[in-house]
């Protein structure tokens, strides 16, 4: 089978290119032992089958974090694969630097000059044939969004052209000499082992590329000293870090090629439409007002759509449960079936109606380029917590559902930020907890009490964030983020993206939801609730001052957050809670459910993204936090009510 690996910088339209080729059958894969994922798909073109792998976008092949290291390992180890370098033609000069790094690998390769239409609009004409000659590989203009050129790229890959004569394979004389003398010392068996040319290994060792440093450990330790010597020579001559000397070489080569293959035609110096939009969208006042409006609009659509479908779907499953109860005589079997139907019904009826529109909204925010702008606007606020702009994406998602919020933390560069962001995002009241806040506090006590809970929540998250970032004190690396141009979202692309994410959700969450529901049904049937209630008495009655009966509802709440409110009505056997609970008790109850343990669907995702230890800390930490805040709420309640 022919394997194609797509490599490109972020925002180069790489995933659009991938989606155009592999469609809905794409799968998400994880690099072994890492939370970094890639997409994998298959294409059948004129009887030939191609396996297509879409690596995460990267600006350079020098890995700076774990994700980039894993992606790099994958690329280097798949020797037989052909590389498709997706280039954003509108920023050709910068994109060529990655191309040059890829050429150094000396593997069969094709360059896709993507977004060629955007480049044209900017007045940039690219002579792709000349570029082809210079780089010694096929360079094909494409516009993946319009579905142009992708097939030609695949065809060109069949030539299996290795860029042996690329002009980029030679740096400035003095730098090249240092590299060459180091390359001579690279043993042949190392070259074979990595199947990378000696010159490239030499360059990478000078650049202190972690992948190669790891690869030569023990067996080829003498090379470390040689590389150190080479570095010293370059540093002495150029008066800067050796790796930046090499980076400057690539930069110069890229600029040279860029100038040779491009011509500017009728450059429009007037402000483009995108810039005009940014004048408002990124404005220090209007920008934030628009941001709030966008979220308000997005969430009201999600809730309206969601509740509409929830009612329809849940009622169907309810009648199915009743049907099972009346038809199936074997008690145990009937209970399992009911649990099964409730679990599937819960996923289809309660989770998916909210998650699907939410994911569609999210894909649109990403594809239009607005998500990057949200990070821009939120950067200064996030710095107060000790994180930076990109973390806001998780927090925003958290208001919909904790699961995508935890998953989105992946986008952050370093582990500390990733873990803290994931941990904090589970504290954000998701749509299920919103049901509790409004259904209990909003309905029985007053709307403003409900809203104040949201404000308190944000303050608590801010405070916890500050504490956590202080504990693991690292310099906040700060925001460096490319702000992509605005794009009209493409329906197909948005749908594929949503579909891939839903598949992810279903495989992780559905089995647990079903198992949980079956357990719940049995608990109810054998009235184990009274045992649980008395077991939880020290917490519920003595510490929180709540009625004993709330015990089980809190356990149910771990399965599905909104269940705790629904079960509250059932536990007391009333449809008016104000008869059985005081305002103060409701307030305490709401505070507790707002902060305690993430739901059973979130926990496995948290586990997968952050590991065992962090998940354990989050579970115990949130329990402790919820208890502490509820005690405070109890005192506040005495004063207020």
């Amino acid at each position, binding site marked *: 089978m022919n394997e194609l690996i797509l490599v490109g910088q972020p925002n180069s339209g790489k995933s659009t290119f991938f989606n155009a080729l592999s469609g809905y059958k794409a799968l998400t894969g994880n690099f072994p032992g890492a939370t970094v994922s890639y997409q994998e798909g298959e294409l059948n073109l004129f009887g030939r089958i191609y396996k297509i792998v879409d690596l995460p976008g990267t*600006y*350079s092949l*020098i890995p*700076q974090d774990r994700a980039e290291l894993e992606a790099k390992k994958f690329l280097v180890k798949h020797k037989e694969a052909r590389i498709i370098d997706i280039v954003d033609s*509108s*920023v050709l*000069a*910068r994109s060529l*630097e990655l191309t040059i790094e890829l050429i150094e690998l000396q593997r069969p390769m094709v360059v896709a000059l993507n977004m060629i239409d955007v480049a044209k609009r*900017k007045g*940039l004409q690219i002579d792709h044939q000349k570029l082809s000659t210079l780089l010694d590989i096929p360079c094909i203009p494409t516009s993946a969004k319009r579905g142009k050129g992708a097939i030609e790229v695949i065809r060109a890959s069949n030539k299996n052209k290795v860029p042996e004569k690329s002009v980029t394979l030679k740096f400035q004389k003095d730098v090249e000499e240092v590299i060459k003398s180091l390359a001579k010392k690279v043993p042949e068996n190392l070259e074979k082992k990595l199947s990378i040319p000696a010159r490239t290994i030499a360059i990478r060792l000078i650049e202190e590329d972690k992948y190669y440093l790891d690869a030569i450990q023990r067996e080829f330790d003498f090379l470390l000293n040689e590389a150190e010597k080479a570095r010293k020579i370059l540093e002495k001559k150029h008066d800067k*870090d050796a*790796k*930046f000397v090499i*980076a*400057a070489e690539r*930069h110069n080569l890229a600029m040279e090629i860029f100038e040779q293959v491009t011509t500017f035609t009728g450059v429009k110096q007037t402000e483009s439409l995108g*810039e005009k939009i*940014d004048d408002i969208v*990124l*404005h*220090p006042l209007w*920008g934030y007002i628009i941001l709030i409006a966008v979220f308000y609009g997005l969430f009201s659509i999600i809730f309206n759509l969601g509740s509409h479908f929830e009612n329809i779907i849940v009622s169907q499953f309810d009648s199915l449960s009743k049907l099972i109860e009346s038809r199936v005589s074997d008690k145990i079997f009937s209970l399992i079936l009911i649990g099964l139907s409730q679990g599937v019904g819960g996923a289809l009826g309660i989770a998916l109606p909210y998650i699907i529109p939410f994911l569609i909204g999210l894909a649109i925010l990403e594809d239009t380029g607005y998500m*990057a702008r949200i*990070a*821009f*606007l939120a*950067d*200064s606020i996030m*710095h107060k917590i000790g994180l*930076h*702009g990109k973390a806001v994406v998780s927090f925003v998602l958290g208001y919909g559902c904790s699961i995508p919020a935890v998953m989105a933390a992946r986008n952050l560069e370093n582990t500390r930020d990733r873990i803290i962001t994931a941990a904090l995002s589970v504290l954000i009241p998701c749509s299920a907890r919103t049901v509790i806040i409004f259904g209990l506090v909003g309905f029985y006590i007053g709307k403003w009490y409900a809203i104040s809970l949201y404000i308190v929540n944000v303050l608590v998250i801010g405070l916890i964030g500050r504490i956590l970032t202080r504990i693991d004190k690292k310099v*906040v*690396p*700060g*925001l*460096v*983020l*490319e*702000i*992509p*141009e605005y794009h009209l979202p493409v329906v197909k692309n948005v749908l594929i993206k949503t579909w891939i994410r839903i598949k992810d959700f279903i495989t992780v969450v559905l089995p647990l939801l079903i198992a949980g529901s079956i357990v719940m049904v049995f608990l109810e049937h054998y009235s184990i609730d009274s045992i649980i209630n008395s077991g939880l008495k020290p917490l519920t009655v003595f510490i929180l001052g709540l009625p004993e009966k709330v015990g089980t509802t809190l356990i149910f709440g771990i399965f599905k957050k909104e269940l705790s409110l629904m079960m509250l009505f059932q536990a007391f056997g009333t449809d008016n809670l104000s008869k059985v609970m005081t305002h103060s008790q409701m307030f305490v109850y709401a505070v507790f459910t707002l902060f305690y343990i993430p739901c059973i669907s979130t926990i496995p995702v948290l586990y997968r993204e952050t590991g065992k230890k962090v998940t354990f800390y989050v579970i115990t930490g949130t329990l402790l936090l919820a208890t502490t805040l509820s005690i405070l709420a109890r005192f506040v309640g005495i004063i207020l009510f």
Partner: protein
Amino acid sequence: MKLIETSMDQQVTVKGFTGGSNLVSKLYKLGIKEGVSVKIKKKSNICPILLEINGSTVAIGRGMAAKIIVEEEKE
């Protein structure tokens, strides 16, 4: 001067960095290197700084902007 001290619509050349090599690598990847000409597209008192560099737009956090040394270009 530092990038954070520039004003909107100024055209400046990057001169150097006062941060560590981690920071420099991050900036290099997006094309922010010594000798490169950048235009300040947006600057306010709260948001990050928005730069135009070789046709792409890049946002730089304020903390980072304090570690980038630039020089104004004379036309």
